[in-house]
Every structure is written in structure tokens, then in C-alpha cells.
């Protein structure tokens, strides 16, 4: 039977896309963006933080379109972000401006401003809650809280973001600063005078500046950051920190007003921030602790903490272990690069595979037969033209130097 080349093209692609979308068609009401944003906010936060775009509703849309795949959702956000106009850059904001809904400091039993547990289930048991199976409506267990008496500043009224922030923003002392004031933690370095490098605009070169490292980590895949950070703690590295603080809250976004040149706050972004104290001495004389910093969009504590471990690991400049090697870390944590290349292995690779097969067949053929004295004629004699390639013999036993793992694109 003859061989007919398959013509694929547009229609096949569209049908495959239709099949994918059909997976969502389950006769239930569609999940709304509000539901993603409200009830699955950790997933949308992950998409925002890996996409590098703070846009909760767009993230909800992306997660919905990606059927829950957070990396695919981040991909949609990044592709969208790269088409947007850049109007301006924000003014740098002091993290002390963060309005914290949660702030804990593992380094101390108590700290100025208090240990604010905030929304967390860290201290509960992880038991499946079957009450959620037939939830009619989502109940708010805090609805009946007497908010006024829970405030310890004596004022009345609900604590909402935007209300009485100034009071709180000044009250939560930065624990790291306390240690720096005592000279126990190495200083952070002078504030940059030039514009920071933007790693979405310039390729990262090695060794990288700390600002490039922090950007890449901030946009890194949660799983990768967690795994590499864990490797350091596990022993593949020197960094086993004590966290100065973990904060979750709203950080203001400030720009220079185009007319008045005043600094104005245009919105807030939800962030998670961590600072880590690393009991490794930066200097021998006048010993000081090293430190690490982590910041991500949305609520994602393990990523922020992992980031601070990796920041500290890389800054220590001992590169025996993967977590301490900036090239290794920056090459592996980007979700888009990683998932793209991993999944590209699904693309057809039969050209290079044929080439690899050629190598192994040559060797196996020669193992099976003694070397022939003369190149044989090609097995077919049909209309072969002058330039047909002889099947020669050659080579000894062994394995193919396989490039299969690096094919692609």
C-alpha cells in the first residue's frame, strides 16, 4: 500500500483546541472570575507571581482558561503582559509601608507591634473538611466578630485596608532593622543610584547582579523555588536561616504624578514578604550575620521563604551546591523556560531520532558482521542516480553519543 503524507494544518489544531475546551463543558454553571478570585485566590496568586503581572482578575481569567494549570495561566499572563504598553515605572516603595494582615517573627517571642497571626491554618490539623462537600453558600466564620474590641489601639471601627493604615504602618517595627541597628546583620548595601537592570529587557549575564537574581526569583516557579530552597536546608548548602519576619499584606504602588510631580499612591498590591537571618558570618573580624530577602505577588509564603533562602545562598558565593550556584538557580527556576522546554519534548523529533538510529545501527551491524572489504551497492537498483550514497561499513562497538535529550525548538 502506498505512502501518503499526512496534511494537517489549521483544522487539526482547531479541533484539538476544541477538544481541550470541551473538557470544561460539564453542564454546571461556569465558574465565575469572582469565584476564582475569592475562593481560589491562592491559585490566582501563584499565576500572578509566576507571570510577573499583578492583575487579580486577569489571573482569574487565565486560571479559568487554563483549567486550573497555574503555570499555563502564568504563561497566558506573561504573553499578555508583553503586549502591553509601558507607561511608567513606579517609585521605589519602602516595605515598611506594607499594611500587614499577617506578620510573624520566628526570631523573637514577641516583637513591637505584636505577632499578628492573621489568616492562617498553619497551626491547625490538616483534616479534610467534608462540610465543604455540600456547601450551600460560603459562610464567613468571622461575620459575628466584635471587631472594635479586638483592636488594641483603643480606637473603634472595623480594621479594613485603607482605614487607619498610617497608624499600623508605623507600628510594625522591622525586625531586621533592629538587628542591623545593633550591627548584628550585614547592611543591605547602598541604595542603587542607577535604574535597576530589568531582566525582562536585558538578558541575564553571569555572574548576575543581586537585583537580577531577586527579579528572577520573584518570578520563579513556586515548586522550583521551594525545591531548591529545601535542598539548601536539607544540607546541600550552608544556609539554614532564622526568619526575621514573614509579612502578608498590601503594598502601595506609587508613581510620580504626570502633572504635579507629587508621589501618589495609585493602588495596592497584595504581597508576601520575608527576611531571613543567616547565621553565617559575612566577615571574620566584626562578625555579622548574612541575610536573605523574599517578595512575591499574592499570598505565597513558601515561595517567599524559599526565595530568601536562595537569595542568601547565592550571595554567599560558595558554589559547590546547586542552591548556591546562581547560574544553576537562574537557569532552572523560570517556569516558562522550564515548562516550555520540558513540554517541547512532545514535539516531533523524528529527524534527529533517525540520525541517532543511524549511529546505533551502524555499530550493531558491524558487531554482527565482520567488516566488509568494499562498500556494498545500495540494496535497491531502481532508478538510483549517480549521487546515491553507499551503505558503507565502519566503526566498532559502542553506544551512540545521544543528543536526544537536547533536541527541540
Amino acid at each position: 500500500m502506498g505512502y501518503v503524507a499526512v496534511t494537517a494544518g489549521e483544522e487539526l489544531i482547531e479541533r484539538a483546541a476544541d477538544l481541550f475546551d470541551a473538557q470544561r463543558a460539564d453542564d454546571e454553571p461556569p465558574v465565575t472570575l469572582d469565584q476564582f478570585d475569592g475562593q481560589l485566590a491562592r491559585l490566582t496568586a501563584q499565576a500572578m507571581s509566576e507571570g510577573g503581572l499583578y492583575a487579580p482578575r486577569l489571573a482569574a481569567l487565565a486560571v479559568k482558561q487554563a483549567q486550573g494549570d497555574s503555570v499555563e495561566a502564568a504563561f497566558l499572563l506573561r504573553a499578555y503582559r508583553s503586549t502591553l504598553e509601558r507607561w511608567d515605572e513606579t517609585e521605589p516603595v519602602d516595605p515598611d509601608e506594607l499594611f500587614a494582615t499577617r506578620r510573624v517573627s520566628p526570631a523573637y517571642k514577641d516583637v513591637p507591634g505584636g505577632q499578628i497571626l492573621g489568616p492562617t491554618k498553619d497551626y491547625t490539623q490538616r483534616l479534610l473538611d467534608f462540610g465543604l462537600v455540600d456547601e450551600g453558600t460560603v459562610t464567613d466564620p468571622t461575620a459575628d466578630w466584635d471587631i472594635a474590641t479586638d483592636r488594641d489601639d483603643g480606637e473603634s471601627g472595623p480594621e479594613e485596608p485603607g482605614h487607619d493604615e498610617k497608624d499600623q504602618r508605623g507600628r510594625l517595627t522591622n525586625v531586621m532593622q533592629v538587628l542591623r541597628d545593633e550591627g548584628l546583620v550585614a547592611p543591605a548595601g547602598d541604595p542603587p543610584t542607577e535604574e535597576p537592570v530589568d531582566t525582562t529587557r536585558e538578558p541575564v549575564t553571569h555572574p548576575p547582579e543581586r537585583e537580577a537574581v531577586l527579579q528572577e526569583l520573584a518570578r520563579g516557579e513556586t515548586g522550583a523555588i521551594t525545591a531548591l530552597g529545601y535542598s539548601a536546608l536539607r544540607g546541600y548548602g550552608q544556609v539554614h536561616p532564622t526568619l526575621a519576619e514573614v509579612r502578608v499584606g498590601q503594598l502601595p504602588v506609587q508613581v510620580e504624578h504626570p502633572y504635579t510631580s507629587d508621589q501618589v499612591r495609585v493602588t495596592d498590591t497584595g504581597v508576601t514578604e520575608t527576611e531571613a537571618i543567616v547565621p553565617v558570618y559575612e566577615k571574620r573580624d566584626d562578625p555579622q550575620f548574612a541575610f536573605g530577602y523574599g517578595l512575591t505577588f499574592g499570598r505565597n509564603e513558601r515561595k517567599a521563604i524559599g526565595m530568601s533562602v536562595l537569595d542568601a545562598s547565592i550571595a554567599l558565593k560558595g558554589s559547590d551546591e546547586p542552591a548556591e550556584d546562581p547560574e544553576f538557580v537562574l537557569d532552572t527556576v523560570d517556569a516558562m523556560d522550564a515548562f516550555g522546554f520540558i513540554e517541547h519534548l512532545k514535539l516531533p523529533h523524528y529527524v534527529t531520532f533517525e540520525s541517532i538510529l543511524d549511529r546505533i545501527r551502524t555499530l550493531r551491524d558491524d558487531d554482527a558482521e565482520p567488516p566488509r572489504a568494499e562498500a556494498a551497492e545500495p540494496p535497491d537498483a531502481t532508478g538510483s542516480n549517480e549521487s546515491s550514497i553507499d551503505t558503507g561499513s565502519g566503526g566498532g562497538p559502542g553506544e551512540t553519543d545521544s543528543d536526544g535529550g537536547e533536541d527541540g525548538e
Partner: protein
Amino acid sequence: MDPVKPTRTGVRTVSEPDHGENHASDGTTGEATDESGGTPVEAEDVDGALAALDGAGLAGYNYAYLDEHTKREVRRAVLKAIAIPGHQVPFASRPMPLARGWGTGGIQTTLSLLGPEDTLKVIDQGSDESVNAANIRRLAERTADVETTTDTTAADVIQTRHRIPEEVLDRDQVLVLQVPVTDPLRKVDPSDAANRRRHAHANYGKMWVHLYENVVEYGEIQVASRYPVTVAGRYLMDPSPIPRWDVPKLNDADNLFLFAAGREARIYAVPPHTDVEPLAFDDRPFQVERFDAPCEACGATDTYRTAVETDEGDRLVVCNDTSFCLKRREDAGLAKDHHLDRDGVDWGPGTPDADDTDQEPATNGGDRT
């Protein structure tokens, strides 16, 4: 929300597909004046402005999808790549609506080259019909308003993954190859920083040792594809995962070759009429692939072929370059330079190139000691 006055800095403009421009990626204000070719939208507030832009769809994108800033970045890198053949030039690779690893470098390059009077061919594994090639072709067709073709000889720009076409490319054509791993030295050292220093000093000893160890252990160089080549006597280059069959085409060609990697963010080039030599030893010459049978469809014995396993359990061998195979089915003896007014053009196996001894497979003759 306070009303936002539409100002030159404040409002996103809608661009016309053929000469609009949104400067999607510049960090500075004040760019909006000269570079946005679209119509400012009058609106009382941001929501109103966005509503007015609803349904703009692809009309909201610049010609050939990329903004002009991105094109400049790619174009600068391409020019330096041409000026330093074989050297990997870094560029700020943008996120694209294709995943990393699926041709984003090639697509950024192609879109920075194309003009509306150009004709584009896109192949993957030698085939125009591969779904990924079709997807790339569609993006370019819609955003750059170009004609597309499956005929190699009719294309101005050809974007390809893993093959160089069988038909000879001519001086006016540009071949854009998709590259997954840019550095041939990655085989011997995973660190790019270390490898860049090696390239800086033309210190390629580690690669030679790797090939030598190959020969000592297995009797011949066992590199299948991504065969390392020396360009213009200076840089060691990875020709991308093209088969060895295609490597001779790079040497002293009439056309320009551009190699682009989006994930690794590098572009490199081989200009026309440039020396490109595969690494080999005097007694272990460079070898191309061999095939058991002629093409089942057209009978060719001088093309790169791949195996197809049929439902009946047979293995057929067919031409990998599907568009050339279709031509050969009409005309079995069609020369690879049939469309040129000169013949005897060197273009790898099946052309006078093949007469060079280093293209022949090693005829062992039992003299391996």
C-alpha cells in the same frame, strides 16, 4: 475612579495593522508621540477607554505582532551576529504566545524580518504540515500579512525546525533555524559562563578531547545531530539539531543562515560564502547518515529519509522534505538546483558536495587497528 484625560502618555491607542505602532515595551514616558501610529481614544475614564477598544483583537497589535522596540532589539542582534559569524549574540527575548522551547526565538527573528511583500515557508521536521509549523505560519500570516508557501524555491524567508531543505537556497533567501541549545560546548560543560570564556579564547580543547574519547571508546565519532562545526575558522558553533546530512549545506552557501533561540536568548548567524567545517579527525572523517531503502513515495536515494511504521507492521522509508518529495513524484530525476540557472551547485549529499571525500561514509576495509 477619577476621569482620566486622554493625553499622549495616558491612553492606550489602537494601532492599524499595517502601520500602527504601539510601543509596548519601552520604559520611558514620552514615547507615545511619534511612535504610536494609531488613533487616540477619547474617553471620560479608563473603563470607557477600554470598552472602546473591545473587539480590537489582533487589530490592536503592531505590524508583525512585535512592537518596534522588540524588532530593534532582534535586528541589532542579527546584525552583530552576521558581523561575527558563529558567535552567540545575547538579546532580550520576549515572551511570545508560543511556549519557550517551541520556536519563540525563530518567530521573533522571522517577524523582525518579514515585510508584506515577502513570502514565508515554515517547516518542522522537514514538513510544512506539522501542527507546530502550521501554528507559527498562521501567526505570521495574520500579523505580517504575508503570502505563505510550501514551495522552498518560492519563499523569501523560511523558518525551520531541524532541517535544511533539499532544494538549494539562493542568494535572496534567508533561512531561520530554531535552536534549542545554543552552545556546542554544553555537551562538555553545563556552565555558560565557563563556555563563554572558552569561546573568547578559542579554547576548544575540551570538545576535541570529548570527540577523541568517543573514537577511542566506540571507534568513530558518535555524534548524531547538533554536530559541532567551526565557522570562518574561529567560532565553534552548534548548527541546531539538523542531521549531519544537512551540515555541508552551511559551507559556502549563497544564502544567509540565522539561528535563533528564544529561551536561551541568543542569535547567531552564518553569512553566505563562509567556511563551515564539521569537526573531525584526519582518519575519522565526518559522516552523513545512511539509509536502507529509497523513498517509498518517489524513489529518491539522494535525500534525507525517515522511517514510518505502518499499521501493517511494515517500516517504510520516505523523504523527509515533504514538499520536495511531492515534486519528485511528478519528476523523479528533479535536480536539487532545478530552479537555478546554473547547475552543479554544492548543497550537501546528492550534489557535487558529495564527491568530497569527507562526505562519504568511512569505508572501513578492515583497517581499523
